[in-house]
C-alpha cells in the first residue's frame, strides 16, 4: 500500500506536462548539401501538421521511412513534403536513389 502511494506520487511528480496542448502547423526548412541534411534531426510532436521545405544541391528523391512518403527535389528549386505526424517514433530520411541515410525525423508522443 505504502509502495503504491510512493510510486504513484513519484509518477505525477516526475511526469512533465504534455507538450504544448494542441497540434500545431510546423514548417521546417531542410537543406541537403554534399549528402548531409541540415538539421540532421527534426523534432516534431504527434499530430502536428508538418511541412518540410526541401532544398538540395543535387537532384534526388527524398524518402521518409515509416510514413513512406517521397518527394523529388531539383537543385535551385524549392520542393515541400507535407504530412500529418500521426505515427510516433524515430524515422529515417533517406535519398531513395542511393539508399543513403540523410537524417532522422523524431515524432514525440503526446
Amino acid at each position, binding site marked *: 500500500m505504502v509502495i503504491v502511494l510512493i510510486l504513484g506520487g513519484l509518477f505525477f511528480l*516526475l511526469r512533465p506536462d504534455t507538450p504544448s496542448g494542441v497540434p500545431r502547423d510546423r514548417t521546417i526548412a531542410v537543406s541537403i548539401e554534399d549528402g548531409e541534411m541540415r538539421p540532421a534531426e527534426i523534432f516534431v510532436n504527434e499530430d502536428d501538421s508538418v511541412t518540410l521545405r526541401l532544398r538540395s544541391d543535387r537532384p534526388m528523391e527524398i524518402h521518409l521511412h515509416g510514413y513512406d512518403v517521397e518527394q523529388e527535389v531539383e537543385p535551385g528549386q524549392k520542393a515541400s513534403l507535407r504530412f500529418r505526424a*500521426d505515427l510516433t517514433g*524515430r524515422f529515417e530520411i533517406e535519398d531513395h536513389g542511393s539508399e543513403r541515410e540523410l537524417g532522422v525525423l523524431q515524432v514525440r508522443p503526446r
Partner: protein
Amino acid sequence: MQTSRVAVAALAFSFILAGARPALAHGFGPTYDIPIPLWLYLYGAAAAVVLSFLPLALFYRKERDSPYRYPRLDLFRIRFLKKVLTSRLLTGGLRLLSVALFLVVVIAGLVGLQSGYNFAPTFVWVTWWVGFSLFTAFVGNLWPLVNPWRVVFDWAEGLVRRLGYRDGLEFDEPYPEALGIWPAVGLYLVFVWIENVFSGSYVPRNIALFALAYSLITLYGMAFFGKETWLRRGDAFSVFFGLLGRFAPTEARVKDPDVCLGCDGCGDDAGGGCVNCYKCFARAAPDERELNLRPPAVGLGLAEKVMPGGAAFVIVVLAGVTFDGLLETPLWLEIVRLTPLTQTLGTILLPLLFFGLYLGFVELSRFLGGGGEGGFRRFAAAYAFSLVPITIAYQVAHYYTYLLVQGQMMVSLVSDPLGWGWNLFGTADFEPRYGIVGAGFVWYSQVALIVAGHVIAVYLAHSISLRLLRDPGRALRSQLPMLVLMVLYTMTSLWILAQPIVE
C-alpha cells in the same frame, strides 16, 4: 502494388548497407523506437529501488518452507488436451515443419536473392531468434521437440538401426566432465559476435553457411559424445532455450523419481520427480508424465545440478543483450574512438567484466550471510539463475518492437522466400504496417518490463538464499549485496534505453 514491393526490398537492402558500415553492425533493421525521456528513466530507476523492498518484506514475514511447492495444474489431466498435445500428428508435424524451415533457410541463403528480399535473414533473426525466444520464455520450451539438428539426428539414427546397425550413430565417447558446458558458452559467444559485430550478419549466404557449419559441429558432437550429452553441454541453443524454459509458465515433469536415477541431467533433489529433463521425460511411461502450468519464473529457483560453466553461460547471455544495446549509445562510440577497444574486444571484455562483478558480489553476499555449505562455487552457480528474469525483461523490452515491425515481413516472405518474384500463397504483396504501438506505449512498456524483471530477480535471489542458508535472518543480510548488484544492472539497462540512438 509493385512499388510497395520495391520499397520493402529497398528497406531490406538498406539493412545490408547499414550493416556494412562499421558503426552499426546490428543484425536487424530499424524499429522506429525513440529513446525514453529522462524523467521516465529516473522514475523507472526509483521504482526499481522502491519495489526491491517488496520481496524482502514478503520473505521477512513468512518463512518459505520449500521452493518446490508451488501451484501446478497438470494439462494432461484434461483428456482432450492430452490427446491433442501428445498426438503424433502434432509433434511429428512440428518436427517436420522445423526441419523444412531449416532447409528453406539454407536454400534461400545459398541460391536466393542476396540483395534484399530473402527469407533467411528475417526468419533467423526476427522470427526464430527474437520470436521463438519470447515464445520459450512466456509459453514453454519446445526446442527439445523441434530442434532441427536433434530431429535430423533421430531420423538418421532410426534409419541406421533399421539397416541393421544395432549400435546406431552414437559412439558415446566419455565426455570430460570438467569441461562442463563451456563448449556451449564458447559457441554462444561466437553467435553474439555474429549478431552484433559481424558486418555481414544479414547477408543470406553467410546465414546459410553459418547454419551449415553449426550443423556440422552439432551433428559431430552428438555422434561423438552421445546425443543428449552434447545437446546439454555443447549446443548453445539447447542450453539457451533451456534457460528461458525455466522461466516459462509451463514445465515437463516426471512424477516417479526412480525414472531419474542415474540421469546426469536432473537435480540431486528436485523435490520428488524431475522437472524439464527431456531425457527422463522421453523415457518415462506416459502416465508418469505431467505437463504443468505453473507460476512464471519458479523454475529458476529449483535446485539443479549445475555443470561447470553454468553461471558463465547466464552472464554471457546477459552481457550479450546488454552489449547489443550499448553499441547504439554515444558512449560506446566515444569509447571506440578514444581507446583501442573494438567491437570484437567488447564482445569478450563485457562478459568478463560482468562475470568479475558478479563473482565479487556473490562473495560479498556469502560473507555477509556467514558462509554456507557447498562453498563459493555452489553459491555462484545457484544465484546466476536469479539473473535470468532480468535478461528476459531486457531482451523483450529491447526487441519486441522488432518483432512487431520486422516480423510482418514474414507474411510476404513465405510467398516469395527466395526473392525470385514468386507468389506461393498470394501474400507476396503484403505491406508491413507501422505504428501498431505508439512511442508512448513503447516507453511505458519498456520501463515496466525492466522493473518487473528486476523485482522477480530480487525475489528469486532471496528464495535461493533461503535454500542455501536455511536461516531467514542470514538470508536477509546476504541479500543486500545482491540487491545492489541488481539495482546497478537495472539502472544500466534503463540508461541504455534512454540514450540517443547513434549509428
